[in-house]
């Protein structure tokens, strides 16, 4: 498929652009070389983007059980609210008196999200999850610095954590200490005790964890960390499993980030704007970034103004439309769907942890690969032929040949039944015709991109030949 630049024809134009309503500037004077923008008519542009849509698989196309990513359906009303001109035309430097509505959105969203998280204060500045982690760990750092405690140089991260956790700790200047998981996939308490000490700044934890299991020792874990003088950070990546049922603040966490784009319904996965709202307990509030709501307070700034404001509008719409009853119901169904699908697949592919899961579960294909030669990658690629987005592969690292499935609450029983049938059929096919699966997908527009070449020699910018 040609890039839009390659479809450009000099002089061709369209009437898509609105009339200019600001003073015109002669770019010829300001720029050394002309802007190299593609020149196309409206029809070309329309077809180009439609073709791009047809080559990808989104939540709007079909089942998308990409573990750890919560690819749920996002209600259209959230988009509608975020598109209201009163929100889209607001400027961050507009006089305060003229943006009362937007301020009310931020205040109300903060109030609801604090209630869900069990926190007392919140910032919407962080642009997405990892940025939220960074902000949260900076709260921990400021807290220790403010007390003059310079000995705390280590952040503890379980080996099942998302890769962003150790990266965040390192970015904040901490040494990362890994703690091994117990055989049940949860934090090994003895291993944790062994690494806790006067050099512990804090612990970063996702609960339910990356293998989809709620750590039953969570109160003991946070107590031990506090006893050692450290703080506890909750990675909200898996909040979709527990929202409205249990609050991170009640589990003993001191600060948290929530992926508004994921748990609270903004389309994501394409690198678009997200929001990693960070909440904290009362004693950390003074360390939150300066925000439009807290003028004069705060010592750090992680992003301009109120962050990605329209994502907050979507999140608030989602919260208000689901309400106090709908939010816990969403997570109940997320957990129910995951368990239903796991039980339907069981007997063929093997769950890595054979117990009731939360919102997602991991299949361990290592024995299956030994018997058939068919890898987790082959199964993932074969699923594409059946119109399904593959699950997350080879993650978490503690499970070999892992496939990680998160169906989310917005899928029907019929979709889950169909997915289970596809999995069962592929399991049988691996024994009868493994070569076919090694070569999958057979019906997709793109088969197996050369990932090695893409990683070693990425071409990320178009240049004129």
């Amino acid at each position: 498929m040609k890039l839009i630049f390659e479809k450009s024809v000099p002089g061709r134009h369209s009437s898509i652009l609105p009339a200019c309503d600001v003073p015109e500037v002669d770019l010829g004077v300001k720029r050394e070389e002309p802007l190299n923008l593609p020149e196309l008519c409206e029809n070309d542009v329309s077809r180009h983007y439609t073709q791009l849509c047809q080559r990808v698989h989104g939540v709007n196309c079909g089942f998308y059980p990409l573990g750890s990513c919560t690819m749920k359906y996002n209600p259209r009303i959230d988009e509608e609210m975020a598109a209201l001109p009163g929100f889209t035309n607001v400027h961050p430097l507009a006089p305060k008196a003229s943006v009362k509505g937007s301020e009310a959105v931020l205040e109300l969203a903060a109030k609801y999200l604090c209630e869900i998280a069990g926190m007392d204060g919140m910032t919407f500045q962080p642009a997405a999850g990892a940025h939220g982690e960074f902000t949260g760990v900076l709260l921990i750092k400021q807290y220790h610095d403010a007390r003059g405690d310079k000995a705390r140089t280590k952040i503890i991260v379980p080996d099942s954590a998302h890769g962003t956790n150790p990266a965040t700790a390192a970015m904040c200047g901490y040494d990362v200490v890994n703690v091994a998981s117990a055989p049940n996939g949860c934090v090994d308490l003895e291993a944790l005790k062994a690494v806790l000490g006067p050099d512990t700044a804090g612990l970063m934890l996702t609960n339910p964890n990356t293998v989809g299991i709620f750590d039953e020792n969570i109160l003991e874990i946070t107590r031990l960390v506090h006893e050692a003088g450290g703080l506890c950070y909750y990675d909200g990546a898996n909040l979709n499993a527990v929202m409205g049922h249990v609050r991170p603040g009640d589990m003993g966490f001191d600060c948290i980030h929530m992926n508004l784009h994921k748990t609270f319904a903004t389309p994501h996965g394409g690198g678009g704007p997200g929001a990693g709202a960070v909440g904290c307990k009362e004693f950390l509030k003074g360390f939150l970034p300066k925000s439009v709501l807290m003028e004069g307070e705060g010592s750090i700034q992680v992003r301009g103004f109120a962050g990605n404001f329209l994502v907050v509008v979507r999140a608030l719409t989602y919260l208000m439309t689901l309400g106090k009853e709908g939010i816990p119901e969403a997570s109940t169904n997320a957990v129910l769907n995951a368990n239903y699908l796991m039980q339907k697949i069981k007997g063929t592919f093997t769950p890595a942890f054979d117990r009731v899961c939360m919102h997602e579960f991991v299949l361990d294909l290592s024995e299956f690969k030994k018997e058939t030669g068919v890898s987790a990658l082959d199964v993932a690629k074969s699923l594409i032929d059946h119109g399904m987005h593959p699950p997350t592969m080879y993650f978490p690292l503690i499970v070999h040949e892992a496939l990680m499935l998160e169906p989310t609450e917005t899928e029907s029983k019929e979709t889950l039944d169909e997915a289970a049938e596809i999995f069962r059929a592929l399991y049988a096919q691996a024994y009868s015709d493994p070569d076919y699966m090694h070569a999958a997908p057979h019906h997709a527009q793109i088969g197996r991109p050369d990932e090695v070449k893409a990683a070693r020699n990425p071409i990320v910018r178009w240049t004129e030949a």
Partner: protein
Amino acid sequence: MNYPKELMYTKDHEWLKEEDGVAVIGISEFAQDALGDVVFVNLPQEGDEVVAGDAFGDVESVKAVSDLLSPVTGTVCAVNEELLDSPELLNSDPYGAWIIKVENVTDKEELMDADAYEAFCAEEG
């Protein structure tokens, strides 16, 4: 799978060879097979201290990033910089593509000989 007899191995799938009091370190064929195609390698610098059991660098494959754990404590005296441009050598020639050389070795991980390591890998699957 190849397990050269003249090498010693760790449970983390690094190999080690001693040459005139210098420890030469790489990753085993089993390791490169499990990693898949290696696309980047992060290496220490000459003069860096390494500690037995601690990470001295990492390898990134299409699947994941994995720490390289040092089998010995000592000082890095040579780094195979060819790997920065050609990380695929770890896949094509794991026993030829050494990663670092360490001198002044003061401590060692528990090491296995080729037979013990082969049995260990068979168990790991």
